[in-house]
């Protein structure tokens, strides 16, 4: 095993995560390489140094504080309402609320105009008479092409039977 290879495996070796063959090669190289020994020692020492950051003790009354806090702790929906109340009374947000309200009003008005269902009697009242006739006789309008050629069709029958 070479130094470069060993240095990559140092954290795993210290964590006991190398297989037995790799660990043996690692130890074999370490015995004869002072530089790698120092490198491994540096890893070990820096990890051990973390002990210098010691624990803190809890406040002596932490249990009492907890029960007091639990009693005064609001359920989530009350916290949400309190948050909303605070947001709505924030003066700095007034322009934002004004913009949102304006957009909502304009949007509602636009939507109303677009999808408005008109009264049929009102529609009929403003239609011109020829359009009104067409609407009243819609079936005839659909067959207009046939109707307009009706005379020709009658003559066509005579023409076809002429030879007979």
């Amino acid at each position: 095993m070479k130094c470069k290879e060993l240095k990559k495996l140092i954290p795993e070796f210290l964590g006991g995560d190398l297989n037995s063959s790799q660990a043996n090669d690692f130890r074999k190289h370490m015995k004869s390489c002072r530089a790698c020994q120092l490198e491994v020692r540096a890893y070990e020492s820096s990890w051990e140094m973390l002990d210098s950051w010691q624990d803190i003790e809890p406040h002596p009354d932490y249990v009492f504080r907890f029960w007091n806090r639990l009693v005064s702790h609001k359920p989530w929906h009350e916290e949400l309402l309190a948050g909303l109340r605070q947001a709505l009374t924030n003066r700095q947000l007034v322009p934002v609320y004004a913009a949102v309200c304006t957009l909502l009003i304009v949007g509602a008005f636009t939507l109303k105009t677009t999808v408005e269902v008109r009264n049929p009697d009102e529609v009929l009242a403003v239609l011109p008479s020829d359009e009104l006739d067409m609407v009243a006789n819609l079936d005839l309008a659909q067959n207009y092409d046939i109707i307009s050629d009706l005379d020709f069709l009658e003559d066509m029958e005579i023409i076809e039977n002429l030879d007979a």
Partner: protein
Amino acid sequence: MLEFQKGNVPAFETLMRKYYARILNFSYRFVGDRDTAEDLAQEVFIKVHRSGSSYRPQAKFQTWIYTIAKNLSLNAVRSMKRQAVSLDQDVDGEDGAMQRQLADPKAEHPAQVLQRQETAVIVQEAVNSLPENQKLAVILRRYERLSYEAIAETMGCSPEAVKSLLNRAKENLKVKLSHLLHMPDK
């Protein structure tokens, strides 16, 4: 926890006395502020208390409570302004907190006490400077002594990912603490 679910309130206090200090220290090392850590520890147990009826023993209680602490601590860190710890400042904002960090000042030479304090500050800085995931893995492994599997469950990743995070963290810590490694032994 199961006893508490049955209505045994003293069981909850037993649970609290067993885990409170560990949750407090976990939060303290992650957020870097004692007062915030105390608040977070209290919030963790409020959540535990309120979840009493819905708790299911599918995971170990320890993993569950650390997951709650992790989530609350992450939220706290992301919302608060971080203040860098320097050698010129106290390790903590309160005068009393420094003394609590010392094992037994009367048994040590003042020079050794001072050296330990300085080392503690540098170590704290080094750990705080790690990426979030590496820092979390280091705190759970080195200080809370959790197994790779427990850390993996808490962090929502695989044990192999935890090992990888710890390996990278060890490399980073070696670099950041290398200038202290030539200090004379105590």
